[in-house]
């Protein structure tokens, strides 16, 4: 299977300059590979750095050291050292990221929020919105809500809008941070189905799922994220 993400020696330490330069080590020396058509689940206790790792793969967090390569337009491209233009292009074309919470854009209707990633890739409004509608329907967002901005939606509804937005493009790589956390069983099942279909299309998925049922249903591989202390213990 083709390597889609390759992480080597990834270390993350937060330095809190305004708290006396406190160093907050999260993880050290992570080696990790994600392959085409596989779903890798990040596993570890709260605070171990699962979200930090996922955000690093999206170039939202900067590595302290180590490297991250992602397959973009057929080549493995290093995230660190890539200019902003390349990073933006990678996000548009190659990597989708479903964060834990939807970041609401004031006054933009739900249908447009979901359609936006397709629009940014140059797909016509009508076609992009039709696809957005299909996904919202599958995720049981009633049509009367589509023309409203999601700002006032419930937590679960916002999360489903977020998921629809993440799945609207067939990204080669998809990063999911607890997409089912605030969903009922019916909608969690839809997400499991969406993940399965993306994987069958060849998407490399890296996700965090607290719900063991969902985890068992989607995981091809489990990657244990060790907090810094545990890594140290293992090394010694």
């Amino acid at each position, binding site marked *: 299977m083709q390597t889609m993400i390759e992480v080597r020696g990834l270390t993350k330490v*937060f*330095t*809190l*300059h*305004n708290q006396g330069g406190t160093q907050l080590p999260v993880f050290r020396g992570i080696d990790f590979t994600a392959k085409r058509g596989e779903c890798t689940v990040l596993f570890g206790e709260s605070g171990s750095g699962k979200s930090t790792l996922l*955000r690093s793969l999206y*170039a*939202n*967090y*900067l590595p302290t050291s180590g490297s991250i390569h992602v397959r973009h337009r057929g080549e493995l491209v290093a995230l660190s050292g890539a200019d*902003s*233009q390349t*990073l*933006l*292009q990678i996000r548009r074309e190659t990597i989708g990221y479903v964060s834990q919470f939807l*970041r609401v*854009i*004031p*006054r*933009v209707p739900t249908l447009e929020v979901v359609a936006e990633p397709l*629009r*940014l890739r140059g797909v016509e409004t009508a076609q992009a919105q039709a696809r957005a509608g299909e996904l919202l329907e599958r995720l049981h967002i009633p049509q009367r809500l589509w023309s409203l901005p999601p700002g006032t939606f419930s937590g679960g509804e916002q999360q489903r809008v977020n998921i629809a937005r993440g799945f609207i493009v067939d990204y080669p790589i998809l990063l999911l941070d607890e997409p089912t956390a605030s969903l009922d069983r019916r909608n969690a099942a839809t997400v499991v189905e969406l993940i399965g279909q993306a994987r069958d299309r060849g998407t490399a998925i890296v996700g965090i799922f607290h719900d063991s049922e969902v985890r068992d249903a989607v995981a091809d591989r489990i990657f244990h994220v060790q907090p810094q202390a545990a890594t140290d213990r293992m090394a010694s």
Partner: protein
Amino acid sequence: MNREPLLQVRQLTKLHAPGKGCREVSFDLYPGEVLGIVGESGSGKSTLLSCLSARLAPDSGSILYRTDAGETVDLYQLSEARQRQLQRTEWGIVHQHARDGLRMGVSGGANIGERLMATGERHYGQLRATAARWMRDVELDVGRIDDRPTTYSGGMQQRLQIARNLVTHPRLVFMDEPTGGLDVSVQARLLDLLRQLVTELGLAVVIVTHDLAVARLLAQRLIVMRRSQVVESGLTDQVLDDPQHAYTQLLVSSVLTA
């Protein structure tokens, strides 16, 4: 995607006094890209913006601009007439104080129409209709079209200034705190409008703002300035979510939501 930068800024320096102004600023801006500039009051954001928009000659450094016609020109090698022509036809400049960007002696409608006339539109009815449409877009009462901006509130003046600048569909817009004096709902409408224009017209924007939420919403890329220097730059969400510099961390931690 056009890979040729619209602006190439290199080692740009303009100091009014030591530490006051901008020093050794370098970046590229691409078509359709929105670059945010944030930083504390007095850090040099407006000075930088004035240099970029050919309103304040730098002490040193260079700015290359790729014109609509596809030639690359060094801004400060151009004649003043040519600079003004670019400002009128290819750029928009939204000033921090609306009064600096408006003609206070003519009506609101004329403020919008004037910019259109500069690009060749002459038909009175057409000018007036377009002015009215833009007033509606920025949520100004069209009934005020014949009133002078002196009779507008500060927020209305700012909206008028934005309409005046965007009516000609410029390819590059410089904005200094465009949403500063506006109430939250009007701000949201304007941000929405700007977002739309940016995607539909491939508009490139350099926007100075103290509001990190505005930067997050509009800008793909962010520059953080402090005491005339760029202390950090990168993708907006990266700079705001994982700030590396002590000053940026302070800036981010002193707001509730961004």
